[in-house]
């Protein structure tokens, strides 16, 4: 059956400052079809759709609605053309009922008659096979019910074209299936549905056509029936591009961090990490690839003690065999406790016992470096706070993706931000300000941070400089494990290469580097091994020197069930 064209985009370009989010995109949406928009993170899917929905305005290009050129400047304009978008983050008033949320902002004739609204909401729900109680308050609703309210909100306003931005990201598989049934019914009703997604199985299961975006450009639109997974993956990730990132062979790798059977749930009780097991070696960069939100963040936070763990073990191996114990990260009490467990020997090989010794004497010995470890220290990191982890002598550095939220304090200067790591040092309750300032100056000089001075608030610096400050601080802590989440996101080429260089340096120093990245080309050239995470599960670890982009793309997008089948 041939369908008429509902919306046509011609030569759409959108820039944000220097970066081009969409370049010269031509696309058409037909009546009565489900069009999937497929692409990696940052490929410009959502931006493109936001331009149809009136959130953004294109810099170049034209939008045609029913063959006529239209100008869409606000969500309100979009509604006039019967276009409605369901965003990933719901915009609902928690305290209101479903029906009250639906009629917010609707201009209708007649008075305020909640009863008739309730009825109409129920009618719409019935027509498309939703289940919703119009009188239920939003705060009592599950995520999928909230999504239903959002969809009904759009339908109530008479939308014929529905854009859904990653609708299944928050749903259980069963809820997703229900949603797809509803979408089918809408399609049969003559509505056009645009599905933004990166889940291959969904694309193949529900869509009629697939438009693939890569790096902001429209690569191709194909009929779902005439394509397959590997073709789509290839279109999505593209050919490999050489980046010339320096990579050395790892030397003397040793297990440094071992994660076993890790399970983590989020606030809603949904599993975000399911049975994750892997190890990171010292002197090696372990890349973590995956679609955004597959559990990367929770994994790093669980390791650094910021995330509650349901099950599993996280073990850190401190390579201390035959090396002296120091007070650098251990308190006197910890040293005494370890000695009681027979953990030490002297330089001459005699076992150490501190029993009955005065603290002064013990301190003297330790400070002289005469007390050596028998074995590598094995430290359990589960259920420890970041502070406890530090006190155990585990030098763990974490560069979070939210640099100015979790990493640095935006309104403080570089020197003060250095102090976030050392505020516990200092004498008699006073802070030691001298050393942080020295460190700040050193970082500014060594990493070429462009800033007016070490007391300029860091939020005034550019993204690249902010990241240099953060990475510089974490490296100055001389870590044994260095974890970085999307460290080059939003950075220009030069800053990115500086960061790669710093990571490589850490690797050469024997640090276990964990690098969560999104650009597959970078992961393939920078890392030694790449672990792929898919919906909270590990779908495999590959050797970065032999792996291909398609292989990674497949591992990232394939539904886990399919994958399990293949493994059997």
């Amino acid at each position, binding site marked *: 059956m041939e369908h008429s064209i509902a919306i046509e985009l011609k030569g759409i370009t959108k820039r944000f400052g220097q970066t081009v989010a969409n370049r010269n995109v031509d696309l058409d949406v037909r009546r009565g079809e489900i069009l999937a928009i497929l692409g990696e993170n940052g490929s410009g899917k959502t931006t493109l759709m936001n331009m149809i929905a009136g959130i953004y305005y294109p810099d170049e290009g034209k939008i045609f609605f029913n063959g006529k050129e239209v100008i869409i400047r606000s969500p309100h304009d979009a509604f006039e053309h019967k276009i409605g978008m369901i965003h990933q983050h719901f915009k609902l008033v928690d305290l*209101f009922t479903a029906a*009250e949320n639906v009629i*917010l*902002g609707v201009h209708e004739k007649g008075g*305020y008659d909640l009863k008739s609204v309730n009825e109409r909401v129920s009618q719409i729900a019935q027509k498309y096979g939703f289940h919703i109680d119009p009188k239920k308050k939003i705060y009592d609703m599950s995520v999928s019910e909230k999504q239903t309210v959002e969809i009904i909100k759009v339908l109530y306003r008479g939308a014929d074209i529905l854009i859904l931005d990653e609708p299944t990201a928050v749903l259980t598989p069963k809820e997703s299936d229900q949603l797809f049934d509803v979408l089918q019914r809408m399609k049969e009703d003559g509505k056009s549905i645009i599905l933004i997604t990166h889940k291959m199985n969904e694309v193949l299961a529900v869509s009629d056509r697939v438009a693939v975006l890569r790096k902001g450009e429209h690569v191709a639109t194909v009929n779902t029936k005439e394509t397959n997974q590997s073709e789509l993956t290839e279109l999505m990730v593209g050919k490999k591009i050489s980046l010339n990132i320096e990579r050395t062979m790892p030397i003397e790798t040793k297990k440094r961090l071992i994660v076993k059977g890790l399970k983590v749930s989020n606030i809603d009780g949904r599993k975000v990490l399911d049975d994750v097991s892997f190890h990171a070696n010292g002197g090696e960069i372990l890349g973590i690839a995956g679609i955004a939100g597959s559990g990367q963040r929770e994994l790093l936070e669980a390791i650094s003690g910021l995330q509650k763990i349901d099950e599993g073990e996280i073990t850190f191996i401190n390579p201390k065999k035959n090396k002296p114990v120091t007070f650098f990260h251990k308190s006197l009490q910890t040293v005494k406790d370890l000695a009681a467990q027979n953990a030490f020997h002297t330089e001459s090989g005699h076992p150490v016992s501190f029993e009955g010794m005065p603290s002064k004497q013990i301190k003297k010995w330790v400070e002289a470096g005469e007390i050596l470890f028998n074995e590598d220290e094995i430290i359990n990191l589960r259920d420890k706070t970041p502070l406890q982890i530090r006190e155990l002598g585990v030098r763990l550095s974490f560069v979070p993706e939210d640099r100015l939220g979790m990493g640095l304090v935006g309104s403080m200067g570089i020197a003060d931000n250095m102090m976030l790591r050392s505020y516990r040092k200092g004498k008699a309750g006073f802070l030691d300000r001298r050393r942080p300032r020295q460190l700040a100056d050193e970082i500014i000089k060594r990493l070429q941070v462009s800033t007016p001075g070490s007391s300029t608030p860091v939020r005034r610096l550019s993204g690249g400089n902010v990241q240099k400050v953060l990475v510089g601080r974490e490296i100055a802590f001389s870590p044994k494990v260095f974890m970085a989440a999307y460290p080059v996101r939003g950075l220009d080429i030069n800053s990115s290469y500086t960061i790669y260089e710093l990571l490589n340096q850490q690797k050469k120093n024997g640090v276990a580097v964990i690098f969560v990245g999104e650009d597959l080309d970078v992961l393939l050239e920078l890392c030694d091994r790449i672990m792929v995470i898919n919906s909270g599960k590990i779908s495999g670890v590959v050797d970065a020197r032999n792996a291909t982009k398609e292989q990674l793309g497949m591992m990232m997008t394939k539904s886990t069930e399919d994958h399990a089948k293949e493994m059997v």
Partner: protein
Amino acid sequence: MNVWLNFLVDSLAFGATFIYGSTGEIITEKSGHLNLGIPGIMCMGGAGGCYMLNLIGQSNIHPALIVLFGICASFTAAALMGLIYGFLTITMRANQNVTGLALTTFGAGLMKVIMSKLDATVYLVGPRMMFRWPFAHRQDALQTLGVMFFLAIVLAIGASWVLYRTKVGLQLRAVGENPATADAVGINVTKYKYVATSVGAGIAGLGGFYYIIDYMASQEAYLSLESLGWLSIALVIFVLWRPHMTIIGSTVFGFLFSCSSYIANIEGITVTMAAKPLLKMLPYVVTIIVLIISSIRNKRENQPPASLGLPYFREER
């Protein structure tokens, strides 16, 4: 028996001051703005009304018009204060607490200046009986209830009706709960906020006018007005942001606030000078208890508007 009836009617009459103050503050807070300037705004409402009466109090126009002009002037003066608050907190996104406190100091001070220039024989002595309509000539307790008392009741019930039974109210509450959502569905957030802060302040201002002209009807009344403003803000919490409940809440507050002077007349209980301030503390103690109970019960409907006190701007979308 008569003593108790008098006491009740007096509590009601006194409470009307709070009804105005709290209803005004509730309307303001429902838009997401915490206006701590209410005491100063009530002062300015009083001063504005009295100033108008000072102009027309002894002219020959119909008494009803004099009352009406007084009320309008009071509302306008207070609404202007609300507009200043609105401009600072909505457009300039100044800190709501600081702005409110500054307005309280400003309003209370300016009122004292204005009131000291007015002639009490003009604005008070003549007009005060006009405000007692329709019970002006009765000899019993009802005499203390006048047109502005009933206006307070009407406004409180009306405010509840608008908030919970009309679409304007629904949209106003949406603005106070989640302005980003309201904005996304095409509600003019800024407009709603301005109207709510101005109208809310205007209504609160009437409370000050009522207190000076009608309830106290004395020249010194304005000196105790500011503290009643604070009590009105406490009452907002006491009634859990429901305007119609202020009618009961304000009576309870009026009862508790003035019981120190009544208790002595009943059954021969003696109240020492030291105990009086303690008794005046009761409304606040009760408010704290209500706050604790409502926090423990943790029912979503009984919580303050979700975005109360937070400035809204569209940000980078």
